């Protein structure tokens, strides 16, 4: 059988199937996570909200979406996928999203929803509600020469001195067509995330020399009714940062489901104590991402 190897978040993945969106790695004998295709029996479980399966079973965390796919995650090192749709892009979207989030949580990571880039050899996070333009800003920063570390899920662990580190995820970024046009970043071979959506996956020219980077700033994106082209940076104190971090935990409900809530809150507190939080108020405009990137660069240089 053909096996595929990938590296993300400091973990080596061995997979029976190819995964668009992860960075390839050379084959190894002791992968951290093994992904296989299998049949998962969900008949004993009832659907939540009419479409979701979420159960802690003796075998692990069972997560599924009706008629699309079911996943079983065991001990943070084994994932069985039971695809129920022929649209591979669709079930892999869940695999690299919610399932990856749960897997990282099982591996003791604090998972936040946001992008990250390198400045002065430190990782800086861009967090914010869905649809705030995190990826577009990250891309604009990448165009300015700042390495992108993660596009969607920011996975953090702490060293023995409580210093937070962000783990490198992938060399890929997902962008809507209008953002690609605006940033003039189209690639000849860029693939649609899904056949039916004008959203594309781009492979970035980046080296990722390190597996993890010490965390620097946490930027929280916020929309304000400001005049076009205006931005406001505001320093956040520890409690304010903690509140924002808590709002941006990736798949927070999974923490509760898997009994990891206490650990996660402890890590959030550690992060709030050890990171520099900045609220970035911006306008609704999608066309000012380059300007936002410039302002962030200027802010960091100061």
């Amino acid at each position: 059988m053909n096996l595929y190897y990938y590296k993300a978040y400091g973990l080596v993945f061995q997979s029976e199937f190819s995964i668009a969106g992860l960075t390839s790695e050379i084959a190894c004998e002791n992968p951290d996570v093994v992904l296989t295709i299998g049949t998962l029996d969900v008949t004993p479980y009832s659907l939540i909200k009419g479409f979701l399966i979420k159960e802690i079973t003796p075998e692990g965390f069972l997560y599924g979406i009706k008629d699309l796919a079911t996943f079983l995650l065991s001990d943070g090192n084994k994932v069985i996928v039971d695809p129920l749709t022929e649209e591979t892009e669709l079930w892999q979207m869940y695999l690299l999203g919610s399932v990856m989030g749960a897997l990282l949580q099982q591996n003791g990571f604090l998972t936040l929803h946001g992008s990250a880039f390198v400045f002065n050899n430190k990782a800086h996070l861009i967090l914010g509600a869905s649809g705030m333009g995190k990826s577009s800003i990250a891309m604009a920063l990448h165009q300015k020469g700042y390495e992108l570390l993660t596009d969607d899920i920011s996975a953090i662990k702490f060293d023995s001195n409580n210093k937070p580190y962000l783990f490198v995820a992938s060399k890929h970024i997902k962008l809507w067509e209008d953002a690609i046009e605006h940033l003039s970043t189209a690639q000849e071979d860029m693939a649609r995330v899904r056949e039916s959506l004008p959203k594309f996956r781009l492979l970035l020219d980046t080296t990722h020399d390190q597996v993890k980077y010490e965390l620097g700033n946490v930027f929280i994106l916020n929309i304000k009714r400001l005049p076009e082209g205006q931005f406001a940076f505001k320093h956040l104190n520890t409690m304010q940062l903690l509140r924002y971090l808590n709002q941006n935990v990736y798949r927070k409900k999974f923490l509760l489901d898997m009994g990891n809530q206490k650990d996660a809150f402890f890590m959030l507190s550690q992060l709030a104590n050890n990171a520099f939080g900045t609220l970035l108020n911006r306008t609704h405009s999608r066309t000012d991402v380059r300007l936002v990137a410039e302002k962030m660069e200027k802010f960091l240089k100061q």
Partner: protein
Amino acid sequence: MKHLIWICSYPKSGNTWLRILLDSILLHDGNSVDINRIEIASRRIIKRNSFDEFLEFESDGLTPTEIIYYKQKYYLDYGLKATEDIFIKTHEANWKINEKLCLIPEEVTKLCVYIVRNPLDVVCSLANYHAIAIDKAIQLLGDRNYTLFGPEDGISYNVPVQVGDWSLNVSSWLNSKELPLIFIKYEDLLNKPVEILSGIMKGLNQPVDQSLIESAVDNHKFSRLANQETTHGFFERPRKTDVFFRKGQSGSWQEELSTRQVDKVINAHHKVIAQLGY
């Protein structure tokens, strides 16, 4: 218990004015309402974050059809958890999901009030709302994919609202036989407001004194709302638009549209126009 009360319409058809009038009647004894503090259906019950949290996966990878499918589940869940009546504003068509299901779950719907306006007047107002030319607004009126808060509309906390074309939007509600629906015309609300509002209050099982309704109507004439907007602004005004409360009149299309433009609207929507007696 059924707790969801939908105030629905195609955009620029009087939805906000109706909400202000209901706000005055239900919460302010017919007194003047601050347009920036409307309580009736002012809170968006569905935002990107709350939707994604409900789904437990990202909604931005979903197709428009899938968004409708999962929104129905969201509304149903929201309605089942509601412990008191909740007014919800929507411009979305009541899209059909399958033979049995539509976007709006009847299991949790107490009432729908749909307000329709002459599409010729809608076009004029829509052009102002989106800061586009009349011809472009006519195109939008017939666009089945007309969506508010879509990816191309700038950064937003909102989940895309799939309005559909005008005829589809109106028909989708008019033909929703399972829903308890009060269907009103904007023009009737202008010409016989007390009668129309009394009917809605009856539908809500909250009959009120006629004098209270008269007072609410008097306090919220379009000129007064426009004055409030001039003085204090209006938070629901789109960024591209100078004013939200424009004319509020019926028949202003006669001054604003050319014969060609009128013909174009009528040709595209003649069936529903005729059905409604416009």
